[in-house]
């Protein structure tokens, strides 16, 4: 594969790499006969990004430059750090770089970025290829009931009100309004945090269709990254989502040259109403489950099963670790488990009555393992921990 990127597009490519770097530590590149795909997945596998550059993004595009017989297209995985190295400052890139050549030789172990800059300077980066596999996530973006098209500015202005320490955001989508609020972890002391809630009217958006009113929670870090990317390119952002537990897909495209998909895993918000159902523990599992709805396919075959399950039954992961029947026999405390205020103020009780197998956060995981060394050791709790680990070990 060999292609040339003209100066102005190098800036776009640079911004793309920087946006992807906010998602994952590894960059997957795949060349197809008519396009190049860049993908990344975060370490927790809760966020995935895919950006497709069509043939006309490039000034020269030869997918089969080295004329191999293999028609599958070349794939490679490189470290994100190396990629960033070649695109140090995307904002100034268009002023300095005249042309970028990307070469991928099936025989070689290096991916070559060659930047032809002003003053006749040529910078060449030989980036080591770590792997020759591709990775792809399975998700549906069409046929989803909820679709919003928004200018990224509205959303980023709304997010500007959140604290930097907030790491997840809850989106409550109804036909009347879209409410954004920071997700409050169940075991954080409520006296120490700020709750932020912003309501946006449907008229603020370019298009607003909510077929199935729902509430989803996803990570803020990646959301901020993709918004910054969209804003820099001044393109509208499409948001496609279904319901809790199914991935939310963010799409940015300029029609002809490139298309970006950002997929974020969603989880259920913490609220008393939901917690009062039998599956109260679901809300608690957020941190762990978040890892799963989006999975990599080819890279890890066993994940395929997870994904297909995920598609077959609605958020099967929640059901999978669903607490056995005896759940209902436990004290009332459990049923108000989702009510964060109660728990946060009462760490002692939390230890005694909390559901052992479904930690919300690492802090809680620690407390769960601590139980193993206590007198009130419950063998069932061990069982559940194992269950949880199985689902997470991929």
């Amino acid at each position, binding site marked *: 594969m060999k292609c040339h990127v003209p100066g102005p597009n190098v800036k776009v490519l640079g911004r793309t790499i920087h946006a992807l770097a906010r998602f994952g530590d590894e960059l997957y590149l795949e060349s197809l006969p008519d396009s190049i795909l860049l993908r990344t997945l975060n370490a927790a596998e809760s966020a995935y990004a895919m950006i497709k550059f069509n043939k006309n993004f490039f000034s020269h595009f030869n997918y089969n430059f080295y004329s191999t017989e293999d028609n599958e297209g070349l794939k490679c995985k490189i470290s994100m750090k*190396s990629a960033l*190295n070649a695109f*140090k400052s995307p904002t100034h890139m268009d002023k300095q770089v005249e042309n970028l050549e990307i070469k991928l030789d099936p025989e070689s172990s*290096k991916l070559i970025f060659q930047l032809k800059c002003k*003053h006749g300077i*040529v*910078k*060449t980066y*030989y*980036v080591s290829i770590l792997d020759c596999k591709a990775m792809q996530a399975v998700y549906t973006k069409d046929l989803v009931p909820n679709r919003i098209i928004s200018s990224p500015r509205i959303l980023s202005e709304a997010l500007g009100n959140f604290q930097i320490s907030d790491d997840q955001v809850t989106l409550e989508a109804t036909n009347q309004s879209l409410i954004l609020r920071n997700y409050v972890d169940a075991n954080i002391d409520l006296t120490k945090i700020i709750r932020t809630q912003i309501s946006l009217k449907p008229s603020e958006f370019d298009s607003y269709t909510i077929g199935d009113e729902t509430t989803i929670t996803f990570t803020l870090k990646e959301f901020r990254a993709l918004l910054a990317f969209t804003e820099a390119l001044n393109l509208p952002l499409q948001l496609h989502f279904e319901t809790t537990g199914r991935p939310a897909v963010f799409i940015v495209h300029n029609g002809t040259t490139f298309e970006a998909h950002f997929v974020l895993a969603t989880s259920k918000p913490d609220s008393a109403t939901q917690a009062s159902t039998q599956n109260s523990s679901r809300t608690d599992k957020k941190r762990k489950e978040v890892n799963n709805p989006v999975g990599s396919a080819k890279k890890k075959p066993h994940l395929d099963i997870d994904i297909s399950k995920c598609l077959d039954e609605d958020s099967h992961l929640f059901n999978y670790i669903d607490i056995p029947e005896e759940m209902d026999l436990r004290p009332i405390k459990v049923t108000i488990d989702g009510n964060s205020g109660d728990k946060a103020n009462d760490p002692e009780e939390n230890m005694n009555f909390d559901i052992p197998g479904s930690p919300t956060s690492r802090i809680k995981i620690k407390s769960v393992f601590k139980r193993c060394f206590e007198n009130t050791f419950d063998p069932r709790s061990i069982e559940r921990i194992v269950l949880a680990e199985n689902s997470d070990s991929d």
Partner: protein
Amino acid sequence: MDSGKALYGLLKAIQFQECAVFCAMSEGLKLTVEEGKCVQASAYVPADNFTEYHVREDVDVMFKPQSVHNVMTDCEISTQTADSVLELRDEDASEVAKLVLKASAFLGLLVDLERSCDVMELNLSPDHPNVSIVTYGMQDRSCIEVPKSSDMMQSFSCEQAVSLKYQLPHIRLIMKALAISSKVVLRCSSNGLLLLQLKLEKDDQRQMFSEFHIVPLLDDY
């Protein structure tokens, strides 16, 4: 001296060691700092920069190059007996290459070098590309090539190809000085010693200079 601002900037740029050797000569002032006998940096202020300049005796003193000026401040700097300055220049070694570059463009290249690298390889050759800077990262290699036709290269002379390696942290020491300078002369001698002479132009058309000697890394062979 009219304004200490430019002098302050120059001294700041070479301030990577606590102590400097101060040498007053009839032509001007020279301050020298050394880092581990590998890098030697000097700031040279010609006498015409001063409105009044008298040198009574040729003594070396040592002092700390701290904030040097203030409008009406008497600044007393305690002096120590000077250590001898390392003579890095070898009279026998001939000069193999001399480049005159625009300081800002050269700084731009150095800024882009990977931070995690320790070693920088400088290749100079009479053939195209005339200058190439190669850095080796953890797994990656990157290479910057500059032909002599480039705008940033004001003069280039090199008779035969040379390849020299330097510690990148040493090279980075010159970046502060590059930022305030307008022009840089890069000389390589046959023993590998890299000499960079930087010219700083003041608003009043007078000039000050700084000079860096950098010792090369020798190959294992």
